[in-house]
């Protein structure tokens, strides 16, 4: 529920400053959290460039934030040890954006029972509610699935839950720390008048007859057809897996009935990119002939090509399989465009099947690098003993480091009923070109929520970063050193040998209960999306705002001075004051409240209305005292003057009289 009052709102683009004390892994995950905000909401983030109010993210003693924009200049938000999970970071930023916890909304007693006698002594205040004059639930029903909801055991004094949901099925749903729920997003959209995610472009599951505005391309000899099943496969779509009668559609190009050389073009609606890079994701079922091809193009529009110009991107190499395969294609489009799927019957043989597409998503984000699909995952979870792991294939990043994911489908000792996940570096005999210990690579392990719509997914992800200085426990060896030095030799399923370094990860990656929820397992399979990204740039201090002003123009990019000097580097503002450059001089802008303020060159003094009243009273009394003094002196002087005057007059009178 949100704090009522427009003064608590941030602008839609929030300035942030990452303090130096943050862990590098945390910095990387914070950037990933920002990407989720950009994909799913209209909230964006930008490095602080001198705005009056900004969020300073630092490594405090825990994970905490204020609620709403407090308009104090530098507003702190802590991402401390163990807070470097994407959902935790999104949670703290939802506070900063103006949200309290879900169970503190005014109507919560209609939905949960608070077990007051099970709460630790002195912690009862954590279960207060806000009335609807202070908070608004924005017309959204109570959300057990909110990432802002406490878990059932919050602040308990024993072993019994402190929150009992009135609908028992939600008992273990509350307290999810995976991703934004639909209601979290709806509330955020309403609070900030969002219309769409800033990096989202399109999504289509082909459930509606309008096929999301996609069109059949011109000049082709065959068509893609919207069907619920196809000869030669698949028998169901991927969105619903055929679970719902009367729904479950996908697009199919029947190569079996086409002539050799026939092509079928399926083109998306017109799209308008902002960032210049995109990720196209889709599920592809290939039951066509082995030589038939699926190619991805973009049709780009500009003044020279008002009807669009086709540009080839890549050929999809999904060999025929009885399976919906997940594919990612990175695009780099900077002008108005369409995505084009081109199916071609290349071979001359007769095959009954064809090419099928479903659950297409296009966003201005980077694509995950690697896919690890674990088939019959429910069976694997139920039948793998605790403390037993399976490994993904080794994947090599674009920088030449190889890694693999280790998964304990039934958890490790002490964590039964969990999925446990670890990342390992890998090296083969003869590998060259890497720097050891491996410096600052962030490995992300994401269990994909296979919901058809990318904005509604609640995927579970954890990241670990290779700190080249980290020592192995009870050893002088570097943890992320060359696996040939610190690892063990293992044999791959194909008989080849390689070395595997120690793993870093978590025994509590995801509970089985949550893994069985949503679309984490679809068609029996789980899909892990893995990436290894260089985060060495995050070891550098975020630049402070420059003293020079950028000219307000998009055409010219020169700056006023060529060598900006940060005058604020030598100025320290106390009490959360913010240094700003005003007319070429550094000056502190001090924090101000309703009835108090800081002042002084470095905001070292504090004033308040009470001080001001005292000052006014003292001044008045002083003035009164001075006035009384002046009056008394005046009276005495006048008295003396007239007395003297009177004395002089009498003498004269005497003389006159004489």
């Amino acid at each position, binding site marked *: 529920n949100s704090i009522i009052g427009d003064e608590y709102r941030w602008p839609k683009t929030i300035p942030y400053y990452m303090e130096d004390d943050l862990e590098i892994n945390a910095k990387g995950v914070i950037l990933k959290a920002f990407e989720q905000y950009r994909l799913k909401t209209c909230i964006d983030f930008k490095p602080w460039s001198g705005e009056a109010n900004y969020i300073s993210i630092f490594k405090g*003693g825990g994970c905490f934030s204020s609620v709403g924009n407090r308009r104090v200049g530098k507003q702190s938000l802590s991402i401390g040890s163990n807070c470097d999970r994407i959902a935790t970071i999104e949670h703290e930023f939802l506070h900063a954006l103006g949200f309290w916890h879900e169970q503190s909304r005014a109507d919560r007693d209609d939905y949960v029972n608070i077990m007051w006698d099970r709460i630790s002594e002195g912690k009862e205040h954590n279960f207060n509610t806000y009335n609807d004059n202070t908070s608004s639930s924005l017309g959204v029903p109570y959300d057990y699935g909110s990432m802002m909801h406490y878990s059932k055991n919050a602040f308990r004094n024993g072993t019994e839950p402190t929150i009992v949901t009135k609908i028992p099925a939600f008992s273990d749903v509350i307290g999810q720390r995976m991703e934004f729920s639909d209601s979290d997003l709806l509330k955020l959209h309403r609070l900030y008048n969002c219309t769409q995610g800033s990096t989202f472009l399109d999504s289509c599951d082909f459930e509606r007859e309008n096929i999301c505005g996609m069109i059949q391309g011109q000049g082709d000899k065959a068509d893609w057809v919207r069907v619920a099943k196809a000869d030669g496969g698949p028998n169901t779509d991927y969105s619903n897996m055929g679970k719902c009668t009367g729904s479950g559609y996908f697009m199919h190009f029947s190569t079996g009935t086409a002539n050799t050389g026939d092509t079928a073009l399926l083109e998306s609606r017109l799209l308008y990119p902002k960032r210049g890079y995109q990720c196209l994701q889709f599920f592809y079922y290939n039951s066509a002939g082995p030589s038939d091809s699926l190619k991805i193009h973009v049709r780009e529009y500009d003044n020279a090509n008002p009807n669009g110009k086709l540009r080839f991107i890549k050929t999809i190499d999904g060999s025929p399989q009885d399976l919906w395969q997940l594919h990612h294609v990175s695009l780099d489009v900077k002008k108005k465009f369409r995505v084009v799927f081109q199916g071609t019957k290349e071979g001359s043989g007769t095959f009954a099947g064809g090419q099928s597409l479903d659950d297409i998503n296009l966003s201005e984000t980077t694509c995950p690098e690697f896919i690890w699909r674990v088939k019959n995952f429910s069976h694997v979870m139920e039948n793998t003993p605790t403390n037993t792991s399976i490994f993904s294939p080794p994947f090599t990043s674009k920088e030449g480091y190889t890694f693999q994911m280790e998964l304990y489908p039934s958890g490790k000792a002490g964590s039964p009923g969990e999925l446990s996940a670890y990342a390992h570096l890998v090296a083969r005999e003869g590998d060259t070109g890497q720097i050891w210990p491996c410096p600052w690579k962030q490995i992300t392990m994401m269990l994909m929520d296979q919901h058809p719509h990318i904005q509604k997914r609640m995927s579970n992800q954890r990241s670990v970063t290779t700190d080249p200085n980290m020592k*192995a426990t009870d050893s002088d060896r570097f*943890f992320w050193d060359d696996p040939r030095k610190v690892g063990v030799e293992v044999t791959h399923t194909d008989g080849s040998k390689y070395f595997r370094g120690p793993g870093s990860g*978590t025994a509590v990656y995801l509970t089985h209960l949550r893994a069985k929820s949503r679309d984490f397992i679809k068609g029996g399979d789980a899909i892990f999306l893995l990436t290894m990204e260089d985060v060495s740039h995050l070891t550098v201090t975020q630049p402070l705002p420059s003293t020079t002003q950028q000219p307000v123009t998009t055409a010219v990019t020169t700056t006023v001075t060529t060598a900006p000097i940060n005058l604020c580097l030598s100025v320290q503002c106390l009490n959360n004051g913010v240094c700003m450059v005003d007319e070429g001089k550094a000056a502190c802008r001090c924090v101000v409240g309703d009835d*108090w303020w800081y002042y002084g060159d470095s905001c070292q003094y504090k004033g308040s209305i009470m001080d001001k009243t005292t000052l006014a009273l003292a001044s008045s009394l002083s003035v009164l005292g001075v006035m009384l003094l002046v009056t008394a002196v005046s009276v005495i002087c006048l008295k003396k003057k007239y007395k003297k005057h009177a004395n002089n007059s009498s003498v004269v009178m005497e003389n006159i009289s004489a």
Partner: protein
Amino acid sequence: TTNVLDYDVDSGRDLDIFDINEEAGLNLVEGDIVLDERQTR
């Protein structure tokens, strides 16, 4: 098999935000909310 060399970033415990803050000795409003001077008063 269990890899004894594994490093657990969570020390094997599934800590929620509120547990992390409690262990850190913080006693914040609703576990993770900081109030400013005006709200505190």
